[in-house]
């Protein structure tokens, strides 16, 4: 039974109990907030998004296969496929190791040669005039429409003759005309016309070589040298050289069709045109497995994409 005498002590004890209650609530609230932050803190490092991984794998696959295509001359399509498979497997292993170490993701790339598409490369791998029995000839003969993925010339500046060399690329409806004229050993005039207009440029060789990417319309040896590229045409039906005796150097043209009219290339670089197979579109399966992401996709990666990447 509480008496009047005890009432003040009851107030005092109640206040202490209330104080403990408030402090207790504060501790509980604080603990909750702390746990939330700790959980968020565990996510301090970020795994790359699947889109970023996909882009990097696709770009790497394209670049490796491109290098495989242009590293060999004497491989058959079967040998090239095996060579591409080996290198894509090594790429997949390296990518897998890197992603596993950085993000605990398991990334694998498997090349499928049976589902990949092959094209052809017409190439002159040793320095010589751009002739084939005659100075006027067609490296890509008239015929069906095909895709042109690569067209480069690597001119020997001092050996090339003063005079014009023409390359005409047409698809019956439109054409791109390129005229290369040697002004001096250190200066070449490049004039082009195509569906989007015309251009006239002076391009400077480096270390005695003038390297022109006629497909993209730019020089690898001179950043200021830009002109109409053959990528202005979606498809081509013929590539013709005129006055090939004025140009001395190497060239390579890649299309998605065969070029059986030329002899097969050999290990020793030839000074006349030959043909070699290329992987035109690589088929691969990319799989990414992690705690938050799991997907597998089959890709047909075009090794020579049209337009600007």
């Amino acid at each position, binding site marked *: 039974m509480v008496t009047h005498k005890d009432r003040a002590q009851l*107030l005092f004890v*109640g206040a202490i109990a209330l*104080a403990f209650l408030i402090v207790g609530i504060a501790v509980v609230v604080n603990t909750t907030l702390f746990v939330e*932050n700790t959980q968020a803190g565990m996510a301090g490092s970020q795994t790359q998004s699947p889109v970023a991984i996909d882009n990097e794998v696709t770009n790497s696959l394209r670049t490796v296969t491109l290098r495989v295509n242009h*590293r060999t001359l004497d491989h058959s399509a079967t040998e090239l496929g095996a060579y591409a498979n080996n290198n894509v497997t090594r790429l997949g292993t390296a*990518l897998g190791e890197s*992603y596993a170490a*950085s993000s605990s993701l398991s990334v694998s790339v498997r090349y499928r040669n049976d589902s990949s598409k092959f094209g052809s490369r017409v190439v002159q791998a040793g320095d010589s005039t751009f002739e084939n029995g005659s100075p006027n000839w067609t490296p890509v003969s008239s015929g069906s429409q095909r895709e042109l993925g690569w067209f480069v010339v690597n001119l020997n500046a001092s050996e090339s003759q003063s005079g014009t060399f023409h390359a005409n690329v047409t698809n019956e409806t439109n054409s791109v005309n390129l005229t290369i004229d040697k002004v001096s050993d250190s200066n070449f005039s490049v004039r082009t016309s195509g569906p989007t207009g015309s251009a006239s440029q002076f391009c400077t060789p480096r270390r005695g070589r003038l390297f022109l990417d006629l497909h993209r319309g730019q020089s690898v040896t001179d950043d200021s040298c830009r002109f109409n590229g053959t990528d202005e045409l979606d498809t081509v039906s013929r590539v013709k050289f005129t006055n090939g005796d004025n140009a001395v150097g190497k060239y390579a043209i890649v299309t998605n069709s065969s070029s059986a009219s030329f002899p097969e290339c050999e290990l020793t670089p030839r000074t006349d045109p030959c043909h070699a197979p290329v992987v035109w579109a690589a088929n691969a399966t990319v799989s990414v497995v992690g705690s938050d992401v799991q997907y597998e996709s089959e890709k047909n990666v075009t090794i020579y994409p049209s337009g600007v990447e």
Partner: protein
Amino acid sequence: MLGANRGQAYSLEAIAGSVIVVMALLFALQSIIITPTTSSGVDPEVREDLRAQASDTLVIVDSNETADLSYYTRYWVPEIRTFEGGQNPSVGYGTNSPPEVLGTILKRTFTRNSRLYNIKVLYLHTNASDGRGRVPMVYRGQPAEGAVTASHTVTLYDNQTLTSGKTGTAELWEYETNPTSEAYYPIPNAVEGPVYNVVEVRLTVW
């Protein structure tokens, strides 16, 4: 007399009780104010924003046509054993900004907002069981609590060259990983074939 004492005792006990309750309230309020969530550096939402900014920075730089992340991992000068414009091999660019687009974006995104960042390049060793090596590109100190990281993977190829203006046309496979060599480049040729190495560019911001 007895009644007056009792009244004073009531008053004193009420005052003492009030003081205890007020003290408890003050303690509770004070303790909530100092919880980690009140610091923006470790606020989950702020960290998420910071992480998105770091990730976007790497994506934007890597999509640059002339100076992508591959370009920066090869922007190396063998003589000084660090990146061109860097302070020393231990801190890379240190308090300096990396050149061109990477430095510009980092300055606008982080430095102007009083954020600090580190960038390191992690590469595969020739022997996979050795794990990965690392090269500091920018080191500005130990990351604070609440730091976030973003990564981007870059593939290097044998026939690529160093991109700094102080190197010649030698391809990557021609460099050596011995620090005393005149042709020193720390990232080794770890993959047979056209691929040279697969590196991770890791950006840590706090």
